[in-house]
């Protein structure tokens, strides 16, 4: 497996673990069948992500990517956060083993799904290109 030190750091000391009461956006992706579920909570004030938290059931990479993704979007504007890609998350972790790349996809999708919830709650439509594509079947990004 050989995780990078960054992955190990985010796995053993995950940032932003928890829930946000009355979050402005909540997204849950993955499924237990595949062994990974991420639930992302966002607090958004004036178009800026002021807080992000997560709960994750999953492997080391799933926890580390959740931690890193929430770190990366905190303090960002919605537009910036929407542009977060799985590659960027993986790179920020100094890479992931090939069999674990799907975890970074899950993190990207988690953020977007929470965003979709935010847009929906506000009765707005999310820009098409940033809508989550994951149908929960992890074999696709494996």
């Amino acid at each position, binding site marked *: 497996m050989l995780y990078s030190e960054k992955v190990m750091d985010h796995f053993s000391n995950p940032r932003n673990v928890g829930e946000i009461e009355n979050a402005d956006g909540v997204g849950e992706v993955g499924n237990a069948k595949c062994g990974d579920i991420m639930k992302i909570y966002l607090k958004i004030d004036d178009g800026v992500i002021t807080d992000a938290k997560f709960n994750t059931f999953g492997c080391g990479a799933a926890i580390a990517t959740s931690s890193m993704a929430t770190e990366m979007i905190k303090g960002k504007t919605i537009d910036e956060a929407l542009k977060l890609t799985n590659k960027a998350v993986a790179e920020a972790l100094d890479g992931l083993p090939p*069999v674990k790349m799907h975890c970074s996809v899950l993190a990207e999708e988690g953020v977007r799904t929470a965003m979709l919830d935010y847009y929906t709650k506000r009765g707005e439509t999310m820009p098409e290109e940033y809508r989550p594509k994951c149908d929960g079947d992890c074999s696709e990004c494996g």
Partner: protein
Amino acid sequence: MIIYADNAATTKMSQTALDAMLPCFTEAYGNPSSPHHIGQEAAKLLIAARKTIADLIGAEPSEIIFTSGGSEADNQAIVTAAILGAKKGKKHIISTKIEHHAVLHTLKKLEKDGYEVTLLDVHENGIVRLEDLDAAIRPDTALVTIMYANNEIGTIQPIAEIGALCKEKGVFFHTDAVQAAGHLPVNVKEQNIDMLSLSAHKFHGPKGAGVLFVRRGIPITAIIEGGAQERGKRAGTENMPAIVGMAAAFKEACDNMSENMPKVQLLRDKLIDGLLKLDEVILNGDREKRLPGNVNVSVKGIEGESLLMMLDMQGICASSGSACTSGSLDPSHVLLAIGLIHEVAHGSLRISLSEYTTEEEVDYILEKLPPIVERLRNMSPVWKKMKEVK
């Protein structure tokens, strides 16, 4: 503290085995096929190793083929029976859903070649139903291959009964004894075993050596062709150090089995009891008919790899499902076969002990595990949902 509790994946070499091997590197380094005295010194060691192993399983030296490991032995046993069967128009093979991939994947290949394979279901504890086996045997059944003990959940099959049934029905019986050899008694005569595989590195022997036992009179098919080694049934210069180390380790394991295994079993039971005290932890496999060193539980609400990693950070080396299948995304086929749902299968933890494990180590595991489980459950949406539902 470093605790190696992944002995089902591989074991640490015994000093006895290593001491036996070393001269093969530096002195008796010859090729046993060479007629000169350095070669013949190796040939003598080869003969002695073969006899040692044969004696320990109730076989004849001429019934022992040295292979590179358990997988090769499994492949060769099954191919041998398949080819023999085909000659008599028998192209049906019976196995179980909980075999090692070395068996299952070989069977899958045979299916592509027109063989028909029946994979028996198992009880919730992982044990095969003899009546199912009985019902599955057909006039065109070429082979029954059922593992002696399972590598994940440790379940021990009623091998002697299976052997007797196969004998009665006139069907070849192969058993993958990779997890059993050195830990449980093996006697191919008494247990009516026609073919058996074992692998040295599972009983404190070296990696790279295994044995295929084939009862005399069964014509063996080579899967590696070439020189006349192993009576033409397995080509390639013999891996002398590993073969000699395997014989030494196997002898040590068998000689001390009746003394060591009850001790290992006590530790196993202490560990199981301790783990089952935790909330929502279930034991996988049978409580009694279980390898002395095998502990396998599912810790609900968390995923195995993250659990392993946290244990590893505390110095505890364990496993989740078979070592061979890590890197795959699917949960273990064995856990699914005993009826676990995916979610619970993903949360499995295998702690496999050996005669090198101490009680102190078991206590340490029991001390370190609960806070880790709690920590992971605290960040698990699955766990939270479970608790809400209740």
